[in-house]
């Protein structure tokens, strides 16, 4: 596997080829400059602006950041944390739960596919089966839980019908539970794909060597397979964690619009046209996400995985 940037062709007529490379990269570069880099820079800039009810006012003030962390240095009279800290804590909690669940489920599914399915044709079919829902609508996949988990849904019908509970359980839908369930349902694919990819690259003779040397299946898993899947696990983790950290759609729909999240705060502030405040929140979120990614990517080169 050569890195994509290393020229795999002899550099015949080098100047012409360099020029060609420039114009070929130009359209893509322009899109990311216009719709990614400039917008990010504007978010940073506007986070220092002032605003009134109607418009944004160019300025250089820290007032939005002060507003974000208002009351965060000490607990208030009733002993509660400030809104921002509380929201981040709740988002971190979701993150940790969803990360652990998607990792365990994603790893187990990939392990089965990579090491227990012997025919490569069956392997491909089953792998595609796991990825197809990724190309369908997330909102539909969320709504799909309503007839199952609702007050009169299938699960409650079953539980009440068999006398396991006296009354329908209320916390199945529009609750923390349904939010985590939907996250796992939607995003385990992001774990499966990179972990499966890593597993398929493991030289099978290593596993044979491990078992020949007397390692049990568990020892092989723990000492050979998991270390060799590290890159896949980290890439999957980055995907899942960044999605959950910035999410407002899943938490909105599955939480019945009642559960707070950082993404939701930003969305609500934008709808009230408080752009500078939303921008300050976005910058804080970005800083935290970047720190998490930085910590995770210390030892992985994404390019080697393609």
């Amino acid at each position, binding site marked *: 596997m050569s890195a*994509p*940037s290393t*020229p*795999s*062709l002899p550099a*015949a007529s080098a100047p012409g*080829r*360099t020029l*060609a*490379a420039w114009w*070929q990269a130009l*359209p*893509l*570069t322009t899109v*990311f400059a216009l*719709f*990614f880099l400039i*917008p*990010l820079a*504007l*978010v940073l800039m*506007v986070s220092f602006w002032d605003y009134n009810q109607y*418009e*944004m006012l160019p300025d250089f003030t820290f007032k939005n950041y002060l507003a974000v962390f208002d009351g965060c240095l000490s607990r208030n009279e009733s002993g509660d944390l400030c809104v921002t800290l509380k929201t981040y804590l709740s988002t971190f909690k979701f993150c940790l739960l969803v990360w652990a669940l998607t990792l365990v*489920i994603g790893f187990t*599914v990939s392990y*089965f596919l990579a090491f*227990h399915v012997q025919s490569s044709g069956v392997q491909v079919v089953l792998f595609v089966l*796991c990825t197809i*829902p990724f*190309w*369908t*609508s*997330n*909102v*539909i996949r969320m*709504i*799909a839980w*309503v*007839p*199952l988990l609702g007050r009169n849904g*299938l699960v409650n019908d079953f539980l009440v019908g068999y006398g396991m509970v006296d009354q329908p359980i209320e916390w199945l839908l529009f609750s923390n539970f349904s939010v985590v369930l939907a996250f796992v349902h939607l995003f*385990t694919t992001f774990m499966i794909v990179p972990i499966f990819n890593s597993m398929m690259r493991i030289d099978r003779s290593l596993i044979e060597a491990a078992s020949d040397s007397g390692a049990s*299946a568990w020892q092989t898993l723990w000492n050979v397979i998991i270390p060799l899947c590290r890159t896949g696990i980290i890439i999957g983790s*980055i*995907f899942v964690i960044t999605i959950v950290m*910035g*999410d*407002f*759609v899943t938490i909105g*729909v599955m939480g019945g619009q009642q559960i707070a999240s950082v*993404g939701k705060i*930003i*969305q609500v502030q*934008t709808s009230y046209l408080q752009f500078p405040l939303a921008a300050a929140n*976005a910058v804080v*979120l970005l800083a935290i996400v970047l720190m998490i990614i930085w910590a995770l990517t210390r030892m992985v080169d*994404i*390019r080697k995985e*393609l």
Partner: protein
Amino acid sequence: MNSDKRPPAFWLLAAFFAAYVLFLYGPMFVIVVLSFQGPEGGLTFPMRGVSLHWFSKLAEGLGTVDISAALRRSVGLGLTVMAFTIVLSVLASLAFRKKLRFANVLFFTVVASLIMPSIIVSLGIGLEFRLLDGGVKKVLETLGMDGVLENYGTALGIYTSALGAHLTWTLPFGLLIMFAIFNRFNPAYEEAARDLGATPWQTFRHVVLPLIAPSVVGIGMFGFTLSWDEIARTSQAIGDVNTLPLELQGLTTTVTTPSIYALGTVTMVVSFLVMGLAVGLSSLLAKRQHAKRDT
């Protein structure tokens, strides 16, 4: 592990896998079934008859939302995103195979776009276009073009800000897939073409493109389906009219009839149709390639 008798661990893992697939598809299957609910039926089981009632309700529009107009907008945008994603990813991947300064910077920008929380990208694009609006209005004012100024609404729109927002999401997938393709690509074919005197364009058109075409179809599929379902990046970067998924998201809180399942079924059918088309076209192209090679 090659023995005929499978170890018990296999059956345990197979059961886990089956449960996962059921978890993945079960709910989707349920709403497809429920969308054929009879006219008296509700949001949950039991089914009260089987009918297309809720599909016809859907065609009439839900509340104030014109579903078919939103559907047409989303198809149009999806096709545009698809075309841009294919052309721009293929072009850029060709550039990455040559000597390109800033190749690393560009690559990390693309990856950053993929993992950036969507709400931040969306907010940024929304801000960009609002500031642009302010600028345009100021220019029109100073030029004294009052007529134009009065008619000027906003630069935010399906084919401006929303298109850009979708591309920040689809292009990383397109480019990464192209990298994966070219990592497994044998450059000997190109060298042979060049040695035989082909121009760079001829080499691309007659040698490289036919070889990568089956996979490029896959990029098109990513482009369309990801755009077709996109909400998070579009949410703050859209003008007066919404795309279908945004309408759908809004309807989740207001619609309490199986019409919403019917809408879900329709969007799912479109997604599956596109996937089917892509797979069909891709294998057709691959077959033609093999046929040519054999003759």
